[in-house]
């Protein structure tokens, strides 16, 4: 998994490339915790696979930003990844956008 973060319109965008699984989830969590941000978008366009530990990590990230009075949006996930959010009803919890720009606009 490759991780990158940058600022876009006052929002911290985390770009994830690869799989968010039991082995890589702790890496994403650490990367996020090193850069505390109130307004966050996680760009999932390049995420090819996610398991329940990956979903749990995103839930933890959401809880953290909300507890700080901020917000977290998810962007550009594949149909397959999106279906897991729908099955688990996490699509009710997260703001899910088609693309990064839309997600940034919603969060900022």
């Amino acid at each position, binding site marked *: 998994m490759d991780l990158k973060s940058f600022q876009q319109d006052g929002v911290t965008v985390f770009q994830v490339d690869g799989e968010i*699984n*039991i*082995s890589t989830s702790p890496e994403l969590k650490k990367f996020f915790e090193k850069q505390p941000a109130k307004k966050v978008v996680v760009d999932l366009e390049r995420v090819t*696979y996610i*398991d*329940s*530990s990956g*979903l*749990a990590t995103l*839930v*933890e990230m*959401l*809880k953290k930003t909300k507890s700080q009075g901020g917000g977290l949006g998810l962007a550009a996930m594949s149909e*397959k990844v999106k279906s*897991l959010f729908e*099955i*688990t*009803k*996490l699509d*009710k*919890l997260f703001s899910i956008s088609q693309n990064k720009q839309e997600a940034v606009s919603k969060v900022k």
Partner: protein
Amino acid sequence: MIESVTKKKFLVPSDLSEVQKVSAKVLAFLKPLDLSQAFLFDVRLCLEEALINAIKYGNSLRKDLKVALEVGYDDTQVQIAVEDQGKGFDPKELKICTSEENLLRTRGRGVYLIHQLMDRAKYNSRGNRLVMVKFLGK
């Protein structure tokens, strides 16, 4: 297990770093079926969730315990059995992860996903062996 045309058994050490390795071997074993990416995604996810639960919660990450994995297929289905050496658990005790009050919880989605993505998923009465089936052509 079904009387599959093709079967393979694996003995998996209780080490989470083994999950991806075994899963890759299983997907390679299923290659002759020429399955769709979506089918393989579901099988991989359910297999890995079952292995993680068996290693982490069943065998409590004890290196001296193993997880027995059997994979088989015929021209109608793929069947996967995962058995740990733990005392077992009652799947009914799991919280319903999709109810509103549990959405923020970080555990319990693995078993739920298995039940949603496979066509059949059943634990034995002790709760240490899970047999999952996914029908081909779905």
